[in-house]
């Protein structure tokens, strides 16, 4: 395909561009920013860190399920509410990549097929954040 037709395609078929962006994970930054998360653990305190990690896992699972169901039903409103919740949670945890993905501006107008791809991409990123949080909390435990 020559360059100009590719550009025309991306300009007039937002779905194709959306799919490419959702499907292309960027691994240039860690799933969770270490210093942001360390500050949170300091704030919560060692005594309650297990409870904190359990809340994170449970919240990410719950929101992930809401996104999954919304994508299956093609329910844009439910999807928008769930991604907003995820964006806020992820940003607070220092999971900037997940937060940015959840706020993806093209998600609202993505075709249904791309929406599934979007949900799958979020699910993979949620798993990465969840395991990074648990790992960082473990690393701070006294031996």
């Amino acid at each position, binding site marked *: 395909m*020559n*360059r*100009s037709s590719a*550009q*025309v395609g*991306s*300009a007039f078929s937002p779905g194709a561009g959306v799919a490419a962006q959702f499907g292309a994970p960027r691994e240039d930054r860690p799933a969770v920013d270490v210093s942001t998360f360390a*500050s*949170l653990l300091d*704030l*919560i*305190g060692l005594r*309650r860190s297990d*409870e*904190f990690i359990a*809340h*994170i896992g*449970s*919240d990410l699972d719950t929101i992930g399920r809401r996104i999954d169901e919304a994508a299956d039903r093609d329910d844009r409103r439910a999807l928008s*509410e769930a991604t*907003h*919740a995820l*964006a*806020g*949670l992820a*940003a*607070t*945890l*220092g999971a900037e990549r997940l*937060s*940015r993905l959840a*706020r993806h*501006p093209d998600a609202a107008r993505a075709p249904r097929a791309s929406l599934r791809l979007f949900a799958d991409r979020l699910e993979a990123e949620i798993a990465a954040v969840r395991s990074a949080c648990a790992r960082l909390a473990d690393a701070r435990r006294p031996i």
Partner: protein
Amino acid sequence: MRTADILIVEDTPTLRMVFESALTRAGHRVEAAATGAEAEAAFERLRPDVVLMDIHLPDGNGIELTRRFLAIDPDARVIVITADGSVRRAVEAMRAGAQEFLVKPFDDARLIAAVTNALAAGPGHSRPPAETAAAPDDGMLGTSSAMAAVRARIASVARSMATVFITGESGTGKELAAQAIHRASPRAAGPFVALNCGAIPGDLLESEVFGHLRGAFTGAVADKPGAAALADGGTLFLDEVCEMDLALQTKLLRFLQTATIHPVGAPRPRKVDVRILCATNRDPQRAVRAGRFREDLYYRLHVVPLHMPALRDRGEDAIEIAAALLPAFAAEEGKAFTGLSDDVTALFRGHRWPGNVRQLLNALRNVVVLNDGPVVTRTMLPADLLADGAEGAAPVAGLAPGAVQPQLDGLGPLVGRTLAEVEQIVIEETIARCGGSVPQAARVLDVAPSTLYRKRDAWARDGLREAAQ
């Protein structure tokens, strides 16, 4: 620091735990609620000094709950928190009486500062101003006396059928005022139809206003209801009315006198029930004197005048608007801006704002897209704003007259190039600074994304042609 009773209303347990830990560590007594119902019960029991309120709740809306809490206890301070940092949300929160609007993520220092500021405000500070609370949700921010007068005028004319003639410079919010009048009127359930008389070619305007039937003229391939018919039962807003062609002014006058429309090609006129609002950024009397605007039409339309004040005449409104909308823009763009530096505040306060609120919003959007926070500094401001300031701003203490020069020095590499080359360089650089996002760059450049796609496509074709030669 004073110890306060704080109610956290947040449905995500992780975030509840973070906020609770930060506030408890700062010495406050904290109670948390996960739903609106739990929050209402806790508010009645606790009567907290400060409420930290999430907007999205599983059983309701935090903005509505804010209104209810402040109706029960006007001395309570509410800090609204959300991941949805849209401009609309920020405006809603402030109108509901929120003390502050925090966009996630925010660190514990920012949270504590917000609570401290809320406690420092006098009793009743969170109560929305009476005129604001009574006003429709008009999207207009600012508590200056000039805007209070506008809101009072809107409230008093809304229930009437009288034609309102809105004047004001470009960017002062004339259409927002028209929408506010419509929403506060008994016609609120009907349509609001806006027509920009200056943006439609003269030969099409008659058909746009009054409609046409299929076959009435070449190209009329289907019946088209005009704006007047579409607004039947509601409000027709004629923007830039002084730009209207003289021949059409005659027809508009007849429409106002008879309340009938005659679509092009229709055998007979029909009655419509429409309230007319109109606006212009020109001096309508000068247009009358120059013979560009019919005097009889002017007097027919100029029943209730409403003048939208220029932003430079609105006291501290520029600062209030920036403070309310900066966090929302930052959240939309994924940036961390929280406020203005002292010299930017001083510059905004003294600026002439020739483009009014629209110019302020464009400048903020430009800063947020191209930079990151937490504080907006002078070097982040668009060069044209600094240039405007150099020419027209009131003197600002501490700023050297030549302070604009470093910004203009950056133009050096562009001088000597063709205008087409300059356009391509600026567009490509803006897209690059927006992380490759064409829609985001289009917002900065104030053009449609399709314009940028089209231009890039043409440049790519030119490049291929040159490579083939």
